[in-house]
């Protein structure tokens, strides 16, 4: 609660701060414009490779480099968006509730698959990175790779991972899953749209869910459900696992 008030205070303080190139009144329009352009680029290209986060973040970085604004200054100017991360995690409960009827239909096999999938996704990645000699920073960022970004960022804060790397890893993982997931699974003779959606949702979160929705509504619903459940489950498991 106190933490939240401090955050609120720093957001309002940034707005009333003296004029500068990284003032929220400049940074917020920059973020919105970059998001909008990134979205347009994505919609006209129709490939997950150009997910709005790719174009949007590159655009922001370009402007920051030109205007010589450093990252902490930009973060300060974008405080309002950081402030919205918490409520957007809470908002995930709504689609989860709406898709919960599906769980009752498919029952325990789905829950078992979820549990194994949610553990497997970070575990396989961490083992590969460990074998290749990745540092602790890299390993920590990989633990939340298959979780939807707002939850991953909250987790990063909890376990002390670098937030930016976490966000990058999540986006890249989602893109890999969305681009290669459906064709890979079809080649493995997985034709059931429920399985297709669920596997994509567990491994490629929101970016995969958008792709799953293109396959069929059923596929998308399973993907959205898997994404929400996997996020909640991982959020409970990872801190526990890292604490031991």
């Amino acid at each position, binding site marked *: 609660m106190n933490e*939240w008030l401090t955050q609120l205070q720093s957001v309002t303080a940034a707005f009333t701060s003296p004029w500068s190139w990284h003032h929220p009144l400049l940074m917020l329009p920059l973020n919105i414009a970059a998001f909008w352009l990134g979205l347009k680029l994505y919609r006209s290209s129709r490939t997950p490779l150009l997910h709005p986060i790719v174009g949007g973040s590159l655009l922001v970085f370009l402007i920051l480099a030109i205007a010589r604004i450093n990252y902490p200054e930009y973060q300060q100017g974008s405080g309002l968006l950081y402030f919205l991360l918490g409520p957007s995690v*809470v908002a995930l409960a709504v689609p989860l509730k709406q898709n919960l009827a599906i769980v009752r239909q498919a029952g325990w096999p789905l829950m078992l698959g979820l549990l194994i999938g949610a553990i497997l996704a970070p575990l396989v990645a961490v083992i590969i990175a460990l074998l290749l000699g990745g540092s602790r920073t890299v390993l920590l*960022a*990989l633990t939340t*790779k298959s979780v939807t970004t707002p939850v991953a960022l909250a987790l990063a804060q909890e376990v002390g991972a*670098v937030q930016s790397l976490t*966000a990058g890893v999540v986006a890249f993982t989602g893109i890999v899953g969305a681009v290669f997931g459906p064709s890979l699974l079809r080649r493995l003779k997985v034709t059931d749209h429920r399985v297709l959606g669920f596997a994509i949702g567990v491994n490629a979160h929101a970016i995969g869910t958008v792709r799953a929705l293109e396959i069929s509504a059923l596929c998308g619903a399973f993907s959205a459900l898997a994404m929400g459940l996997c996020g909640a489950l991982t959020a409970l498991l990872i801190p526990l696992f890292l604490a031991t």
Partner: protein
Amino acid sequence: MPNIKTAAQWLGGAFILVVFELLGRSLAPILPFPVPGSVLGMLLLLLGLMLYGEVPRGLAVVSEQLLKLLVLIFLPAAVGIYFLRDLSPRDWFALFAAMIVGTLVSLTISGLLLNALLKRSRPPESPHTLSEGKGDE
């Protein structure tokens, strides 16, 4: 006056989200296991919605809008990736290998596993009965 009513619904929805976030943040430190406050807030809201039986209109609208803007909301965190300087080439290699190979491997395993589990759990002659009967519930 429908406009005032809509605005009130929106405000109510936003209020519910903030209240549950604060509730989660306040309760998280008391729990015996570590969990992010906002995630706990989400679980509490899910529980609340299941008990209530339906999603209040304002909450549904606000949540939908917020989730549509998700990419904008986490844009500042993502931009930081270009400012990372303390990773070695070896780290980057391990990272990309883990993300690409790891994701494909876990997709394969979870896909095949789910396929086997779901096939076993229902009669083989009608694998889609339950999914098609969705509207009956």
